[in-house]
């Protein structure tokens, strides 16, 4: 048995400590990032510093080896991919004659929250959970399949679950799930599982498509403060004009397909999360005997503070990638807004492409050039420009379908077979060149 004690739920890039644990007979644990050896821990438990490089989806594996260097056990966690806001894992802490007798529940929430509830059931029968999160198994028939299920709840209301099967003919862990792969069809008819056939591959291995869905999409919008003002003004003016002329409430402005779901991410941190430092912007003194307060007060204009715009696009991409429907991220950006992000536009654009999330960048404002590493930026200078952009957005969502692929597959690892035309993984046409 081997397990991660560090669950990477936040966006992770650069060097990061990762703690792993293995059963007592492990001599060392090696860590593989996307199949490459990146770290090693001597003994059955320890911490390795792993360099995750630029922001990207990853597969991190821990492999426990015995004295002879033979593999005892292997586990994997995927990094920078949608996982929900909480995660739970079951770690075997004790075995007797090779079979697990004690499990420990390892749970983590992205949001700062207390773990409030833990429940465990073995083959449907409730088991007690110790305050440390240990589940002691009663004696069981090793020839029969045993299913252990756990549920955890956090004070934030978030819950998570995990299952393991062992005994009988199963290995230690059994998982069955379907993965949603977003596709863009360039042909006229929607592909079916039959027509998709062997169109999708993972590392050259054909994937089995169980179903294909089409329908309204999920859209995540990121707006900086300035572009928000511009949009608000356009909408206000248009609605007023509409009311004056038609005397009825406008309903068909900026139409999107009914059922489309919209969510917003602002480049702002929650008030209780942001630290309060006294870094106030302070002006140079003016001799008020020469220049009266009138001029000073007349020129007061709220400073534009740096905002983590690019980082919020990465978060929006992760949210969109959680969707199992057609999806997209729209960034409305005033190029003059200072960006305080840790990641570069190129890096985040590339990240979204690998998650299969199309990104549209719309530039507002009268001056300034948008960072060219954002790729194609649609300039919005009027209400008409906005209306045309939304119409194209609606068409873009309508062109997507979701293929349900058997297994736990990373969208970033899925490719279209070379002999298939008229189909691509959503968002990949936006793929940025390698970032410097």
């Amino acid at each position, binding site marked *: 048995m081997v397990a991660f004690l560090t669950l990477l739920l936040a966006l992770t890039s650069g060097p990061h400590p990762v703690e792993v644990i293995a059963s007592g007979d492990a001599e060392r644990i090696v860590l593989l990032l996307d199949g490459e050896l990146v770290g090693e821990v001597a003994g059955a438990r320890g911490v390795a510093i792993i360099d995750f490089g630029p922001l990207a989806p990853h597969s991190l594996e821990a492999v426990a080896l015995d004295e002879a260097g033979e593999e005892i056990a292997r586990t994997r966690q995927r990094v920078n991919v949608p996982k929900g806001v909480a995660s739970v894992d079951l770690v075997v802490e004790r075995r007797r004659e090779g079979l697990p007798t004690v499990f420990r529940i390892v749970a983590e929430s992205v949001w700062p929250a207390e773990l409030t509830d833990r429940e465990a059931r073995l083959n449907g029968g409730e088991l007690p959970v110790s305050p440390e999160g240990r589940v002691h198994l009663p004696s069981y028939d090793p020839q029969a399949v045993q299913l252990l299920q756990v549920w955890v709840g956090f004070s934030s209301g978030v819950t998570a679950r995990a299952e393991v099967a062992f005994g009988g003919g199963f290995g230690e862990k059994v998982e069955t799930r379907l993965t949603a792969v977003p596709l863009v069809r360039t042909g006229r008819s929607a592909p079916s599982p039959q027509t998709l056939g062997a169109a999708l591959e993972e590392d050259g291995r054909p994937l089995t498509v169980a179903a294909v869905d089409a329908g309204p999409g*999920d859209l995540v919008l990121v707006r900086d403060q300035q572009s928000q003002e511009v949009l608000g003004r356009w909408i206000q003016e248009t609605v007023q004009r509409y009311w004056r002329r038609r005397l009825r409430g406008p309903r068909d402005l900026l139409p999107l397909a009914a059922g489309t779901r919209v969510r917003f991410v602002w480049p702002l941190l*929650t008030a209780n999360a942001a*630290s309060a430092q006294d870094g106030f912007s*302070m002006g140079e003194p003016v001799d008020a005997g020469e220049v009266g*307060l009138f001029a*000073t007060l007349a020129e007061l204009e709220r400073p534009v503070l740096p905002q983590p715009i690019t980082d919020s696009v990465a978060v929006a991409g992760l949210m969109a990638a959680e969707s199992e429907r057609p999806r997209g991220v729209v960034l409305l950006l005033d190029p003059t807004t200072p960006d*305080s992000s840790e990641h570069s536009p190129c890096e985040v654009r590339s990240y979204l492409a690998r998650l299969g999330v199309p990104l549209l960048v719309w530039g507002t404002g009268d001056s300034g050039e948008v960072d060219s590493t954002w790729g194609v930026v649609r300039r919005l200078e009027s209400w008409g420009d906005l209306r045309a952009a939304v119409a194209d957005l609606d068409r873009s969502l309508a062109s997507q379908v979701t293929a349900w692929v058997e297994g736990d597959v990373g969208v970033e690892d899925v490719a279209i077979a070379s002999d298939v035309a008229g189909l691509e993984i959503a968002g990949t046409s936006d793929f940025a060149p390698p970032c410097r």
Partner: protein
Amino acid sequence: MSAMGRSSLLAGGCLALLLGLSPMLLASADERSGNQAGEVGAGPPPECASRVALVPAPAAIEPLQAILGKRLERLRSTGRGNEGDAAAASLPRLLLRLDDGQCTFVVWPETAQVAPDPELKNSLFVTSPWYAVEPGRPFFRLLADILPRPSAPRLADAAFHAAETGGATTVVVLTTGSGTDGSHRDMDGVARHLRSEGGTLHLWVFGKEPISRTAESELKPRAIKDWVALSDAVSELKANRESAP
């Protein structure tokens, strides 16, 4: 940003153009994010016998600049500020003057946000729930209506900073009297601190909101609803200086 915030910026821009003070407002964002007060009196730093800090709440800018705009229109309507008149161009610089050597500077009560734990940064962004687009909730309505709650300015903290770091002996907080102050410090406490150092804290309240302070408060807010009230408040700053030890 709230509708009030949007209007403030618009009002500010219009007034500056009216005044012929447009170069600053047409400057780039980087320049704008700097220090406006310094631009007005561009040149060598002045010799400051005393320093007056102005701490404006964003919501106070619109009603303040409305008062200034009305005053300027009135002057022009009475022939004292005709456009193109050389004397008129310098008029705004001459209005509401303090004493020579009495310097003013602006301290903005907002700071860039910093995540306390970068590891958790992606969970700290302000987000909305999912909204389904439907006939009763069209997309344009979502764009217009779903806005983050603006974070409260930190007026008391900025006032304290103006005194401690900026060396101000007089601090003027411009507010609407409503809304919350996101400060860690208490405004009365800052006023007491300033007084103990020989300084004063003034609270100018714009707009129509009622002023409510506790009976124990040392602060005596001034309601600024028109030009006369503003002029009186500025005169008080001069009087304070003259009566200071």
